């Protein structure tokens, strides 16, 4: 429940923040106008979404509430576990088993009066794009590449372009992202079409260690090999169709015992229950201080984005706290051919190419992204799966140049179940043949 401010407090409460918002500055963002208006925008108009109510999420909710944001939503599918309590400071022992989003929202509203936090206890994929469309800024406190890619696809999918290829400003939805591992972390600002999106800089995420199956089956050398053998091979062979669930203690114990037996057979030391859990759940070690640093940096950038009261981060900060403190702030560049955020991926076809041939060509070019594509041009469906399939099927045999009414270039929008947002194809038709014929 939102708490109301005691009378007379609200005015003087933001004294420190008001130094930035009511005073003009020399080092500020474009168009910054100090005064009551910018305060009103921050306090009463802007609606932000926090994705994740875990280590970063708890910090983010606190930081945003104490930075003057008063309309906040938070989405998280997880429930509270004992191992969260060393850093997810909004939770208590008595909350174990409850929804993270719900408890976090309640605690922040209890402490910071005047703020309204709306929880969503569900998966991010359960919400339609319109849900995300409704927020002004989206702040990410996530721990997986998959979830980041998903929301990235949705947010970049909002982008619309003018005919000259320039982006429609009102379709840009900014994101702020943070991540941590041990004493290391990063924060970054993503303004789709202006700064790189996740897909543009996918190489920043380290590859996950995966062991070859033959090593696990034939030549195990480490405790981790024995554990993964029990997890990936032995479980299926012995327990058959039973779905493995790392949160069921009996399942974890079984994996651990199998791994111990395997290790004894090969004389390999080091299998412990703690190690088993770490390997099977792919646990990322986490401490409160790094989360605090990264989340606060993200919240600060959210404030700058919302008010322009200071220069913004450009556009990625890496924090390394293990040996002294070292940070590296760098402006990464967009990938002009990014298939998620760019105006379009250039694709050249022949004049004779039909829609069906083009779709085959695209599937071959982007095997990871496309399997069953639907295609539209300037808002008109060229080929759609589902209920419009029959209606649009005759287009498959038609030449693209005819479907585009003679134009030799244009942007096609391709959708596919495998994609999180639309793929833009900047098509150019090789018209040299046309002139000859």
């Amino acid at each position, binding site marked *: 429940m939102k*708490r109301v*401010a*005691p009378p007379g*407090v609200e005015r003087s*409460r*933001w*004294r*420190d*923040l008001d*130094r*930035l918002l*009511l*005073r003009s500055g*020399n*080092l500020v963002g474009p168009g910054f106008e100090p005064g009551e208006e910018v305060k009103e925008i921050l306090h009463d108009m802007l609606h932000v979404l926090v994705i994740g109510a875990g280590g970063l999420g708890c910090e983010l909710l*606190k*930081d945003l509430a*104490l*930075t003057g944001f008063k309309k906040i939503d938070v989405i998280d599918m997880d429930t509270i576990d*004992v*191992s969260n*309590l*060393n*850093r997810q*400071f909004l939770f*208590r*022992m008595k909350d174990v088993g409850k929804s993270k989003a719900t408890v976090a929202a309640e605690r922040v509203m*209890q*402490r*910071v*009066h005047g703020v309204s936090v709306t929880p969503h206890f569900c998966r991010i994929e359960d919400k339609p794009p319109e849900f995300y469309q409704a927020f002004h800024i989206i702040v990410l406190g996530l721990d997986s590449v998959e979830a980041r890619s998903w929301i990235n696809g949705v947010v970049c999918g909002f982008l619309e372009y003018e005919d000259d290829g320039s982006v429609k400003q009102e379709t840009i939805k900014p994101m702020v992202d943070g991540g941590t591992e041990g*004493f290391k972390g990063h924060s970054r600002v993503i303004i789709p079409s202006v700064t790189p999106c996740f897909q543009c800089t996918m190489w920043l995420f380290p590859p996950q260690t995966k062991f070859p199956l033959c*090593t696990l089956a034939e*030549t195990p*050398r480490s405790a981790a090999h024995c554990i993964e053998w029990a997890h990936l091979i032995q479980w299926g062979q012995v327990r058959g169709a039973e779905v493995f669930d790392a949160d069921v203690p009996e399942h974890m114990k079984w994996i651990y015992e199998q791994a111990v037996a395997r290790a004894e057979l*090969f*004389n390999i030391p080091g299998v412990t229950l703690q190690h088993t859990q770490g390997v099977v759940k792919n*646990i990322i*070690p*986490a*401490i*409160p*201080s*790094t989360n*605090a*640093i990264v989340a*606060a*940096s993200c*919240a*600060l950038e959210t404030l700058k984005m919302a008010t322009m009261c*200071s*220069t913004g*981060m*450009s556009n990625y*900060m890496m924090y390394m706290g*293990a*040996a002294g*403190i070292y940070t*590296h*702030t760098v402006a990464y560049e967009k990938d002009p051919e990014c298939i998620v955020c760019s105006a379009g991926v250039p694709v050249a076809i022949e004049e004779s190419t039909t829609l069906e041939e083009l779709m085959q060509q695209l599937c071959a070019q982007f095997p990871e992204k496309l399997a069953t594509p639907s295609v539209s041009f300037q808002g008109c469906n060229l080929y759609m799966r589902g209920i419009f399939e029959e209606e649009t099927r005759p287009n498959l045999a038609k030449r693209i140049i005819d479907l585009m009414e003679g134009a030799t270039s244009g942007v096609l929008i391709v959708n596919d179940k495998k994609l999180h947002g639309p793929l833009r194809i900047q098509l150019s038709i090789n018209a040299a043949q046309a002139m000859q014929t």
Partner: protein
Amino acid sequence: MEDKSKRYDRQIRIWGEHGQTQLENTQVCLLNCGPTGNETLKNLVLGGIASFTAVDAATVEPADLGTNFMLDADNLGQTKAKCVCGHLKELNESVNGSFVDEKPETLIESNPSFFTSFTLIIATQMGEASLLKLDELCRQSNIPLIIARSYGLMGYLRVCSDELCVVETKPDNKVEDLRLGAPWPELEKYVMEFDMNSLDDKTYKHVPWAIILMQAARKWKDEHGGNLPSSYKERNELKAQIRSIRRSLDEENFDEALSNAHWIWALPTIGSEVRTVLESPKTEVHSSSSDFWVLAAALKNFYAATGDMPLEGSVPDMTSTTEFYLEIQRLYREKADADIAAVTVQLKETLNEIGRPSDAISPEDIKVFCKNARNLQVVWNTKFSEECEGSAAVGAELTRLMGLEDSSANAALYVLLRAADRFNATHGRFPGFFDSELDEDASRLKAVAMQILADQGVANVSVPDDLVAEMCRFGAAELHCVAAIMGGAAAQEAIKIITRQFVPLDSPLIFNAMSSNTTLIKI
């Protein structure tokens, strides 16, 4: 107890049970309960320290409710230290908390012995004069002190301690200690007797790359007067020799051997940090030397006798049969154990010489010390007085930083923060306290900053007017987000000091929240 290991699981994976035990024995004193202090303490209470004492004389006012998460509207008018203490204790029921309703500055003057009962002091939002005394006080009692400060869109962080000796520095890029170019006799014997040619194709694919490389290195040395390849050309020749004994192109062990070939000639070095330890006069130990220095003295003797560090003893994973890999692992472990035994002999002698029992240092501590010998580090932080009272080192560093494009702004912020403190000492308020005097304060602040630069002997540089104006605009605001960043960093340093793992800061740090970067002022 089981709940405890579950509760702290994610951090025990970083600093181990022994690190956690250190944390659980720590008594922290926090000076000033603003957001910077509370955020620092919050992170430590969550981590499971033994206890904390919060010191602050202020009462809760409305402006606290816009920056401080450890206070709420019901606390208005009450003692800040008491309210903060109550909210912090809710975070972890196994942590004891108490409060002292006094000004830290007063306590330093009136009751210096108050501070000696703690294992760590965290001083936040305090000015130069009190910090100078506190630093002296803490050094006398050998208690580490962390100074943290948030000021508008900037922050300052510093560790004060005469020396912090770290065994488990846990470097990010660990150099594998494999000695491929110069194996010890037992390893050499195993490798030379290893007959690759007689293996069937499947087993051939599972010869560990360490063996492939050691055989290649041995052969090279035999053909080149005992020398390893030294030029780019020679190294390529050696790689070509390795390629020539492949039987097929799908041998992953050979791919690994080629990409690891540099370990033959890139022998693990003895870094400057370890050298500093070995060459320190502190290795001339006596009865009251700390265990670290006694171990360092033994290590120094070992190094003098063998010309090398104790072997680390671990082997990275590599394509191999289980049997080959475990055999190599055993050889490395046995050599490491032998080195530990040799260091232990040295150590017992040293302990005898200084009149301590020969078992005064546990075998576990000796083992950990030997395994980490190559990465030992001692961090020294200069006295706070050296930073404040003008010294050639500070002047030289400021001159250097102000001449660099990416650090000049942060060096200027450093000077301006100190100027703001002096301004406060003179005027009884920080610059930019009144809206009506922003411009006047800017000229005054700049004059003080220029005086500080002159005192430090920094000539021909100025602090940019833009930054002077911003410092006045900040009006000493303690913004929650900046406080959370400084508090997070301060807590991280505290953890490093308490667990004696990773490497603490060795110089003052400036955080610039405008450009999101940091600069160390290396004094």
